[in-house]
């Protein structure tokens, strides 16, 4: 069964210089296991690379049911160099992960 990430987790996006920093927190342990299997660094990178470049590193924090995805080259030139409309588009970029569907068909 497929599940939308945002139905079992919340997320938040942050940044520092060129680094995009995304967090997912699962609602419970069982959901964390689904996230851990379904949102690998590769899956996250493919999704993020649709709009921002570079590799993605994943960090696991099982004690807090949380995953972090850090993309060190995603915001070239920092957030003020963006060519998106207005500033701070990256704050909503966590929706790229929250709208993913994971799990077996």
């Amino acid at each position: 069964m497929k599940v939308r990430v945002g139905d079992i987790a919340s997320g938040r996006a942050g940044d520092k210089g060129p680094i995009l920093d995304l967090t997912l927190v699962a609602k419970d342990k069982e959901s964390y296991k689904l996230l851990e299997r379904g949102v690998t660094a590769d899956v996250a990178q493919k999704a993020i690379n649709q709009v921002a470049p570079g590799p993605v590193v994943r960090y696991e924090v099982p004690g807090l049911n949380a995953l972090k995805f850090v993309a060190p080259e995603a915001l070239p030139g920092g957030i003020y160099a963006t060519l998106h409309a207005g500033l701070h588009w990256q704050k909503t970029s966590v929706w790229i992960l929250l709208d993913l569907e994971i799990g077996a068909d």
Partner: protein
Amino acid sequence: MGKTAGVRTVATGAGFAGDRIEPAVALAASGYVDAVILECLAERTIVPGLRALRDNPEAGADPRLKRRLSPLLPVARKNNCRVITNLGAANAAAAGRAIAKLAGDLGCSGMRVAAVVGDDVLALKDRIEWEEPITGNFLGARAYLGIAALAEAIEGGADVVVTGRAADSSLFVADLVPHLESGIDVLAGAIAAGHVLECSAQVTGGIYEPPGGGGLDAMSYAHLGYPLARVAADGSAEISILEDAPGLVDRMTCTLQLLYEVHDPSKYITPDAVLDFTGITFEEVGKNRVRMSGATAGPPPRKLKVSGFVEYEGAIADLEIAYAGNGAYERAQIGADILRERLKDWDEKDIQIDLVGVNSVLGSASPPTNAYPAEVRVHVSARCADMDAAQIVEDEIYGLTIAGPAVGCGVRSERRPRLDVISGFVPRELVKTHVEWSEAP
């Protein structure tokens, strides 16, 4: 709730330069907050201060200083609540003098203000290890001060502590240190609590959507309570909001904010310690009350982080034009195609053309629209080497109002400076700080 022996209560009155004024006043007025912290200095917000300082040695503090502190200082004084802030922005010394004068004008005679000075490391420019080469117009370099720089102000009993660039969490921890047992993991707990608090509303339900959707209602967001932490001598903390304030503090909001912008959660670098957050636990102990413990840490880094501020020639031109009515989407697509043709000589990496309401935020990661949009805006942003180039892009958007599909309107046009913030590292012993005291007349 009231003041509890052995527990020090710190609270967030502001988490960014433009944050609300009234939460700080409410927290100070509650009577049990020992220190309210106003964190008002993002990477970018120091830049106008650096520019102002070049022309006037008394300029460079946060322009909202008077508006923010006028309602707060008398309430803080009455309730014996310390105020700690980075409203000094690019000029903490001048901010200290301005705050003392303001306090006097507000009838707070004798209020003691400590300005912590020394984040300006421009003179060390060549001894800083920059992560990227510095090009363009170099506006300044500021080091992130830690609790060591703030200690003299706290130990000296300042009513108001003002500085420029300091690590956000250090603003909280500096006040807590005299009340903590010794030990690096005790300090780690206090730093973690400061980190959870430093973005104000982001831990009390702001920008939070629970799994599956929902969130607070508009009136709750509009009057959201800001966070406070009761920190015990062992460094454990209870995160909460004022009892009558709307908001949400739970395991989810605390976890999201704990991990916010930390990159590797087992190695979060602050000037005061390198933290490991992976052993932290949150326990919901009541409505909007979460106990936090389990942070650990290693010793502080030998180098302090520095931000170097660079401005490049030219501007980023950012424009939009709207289409409405039946067929708006198709007309907008034609408008975008016209711009692509007219601006085809532009280097691809320096221009972006898309549709607001369709794909201007998340690009090709945007989900498909599931309803026909009643209006669509064509957006173009271009990196322009000079102001003539910016003018050309602006003229092309306006050109659509007569030589494009029927009919573009509502043009919005903005030119942003081309800024960059370059990180660097400097040996901490090279960063000399001192405290300048002043007293309200």
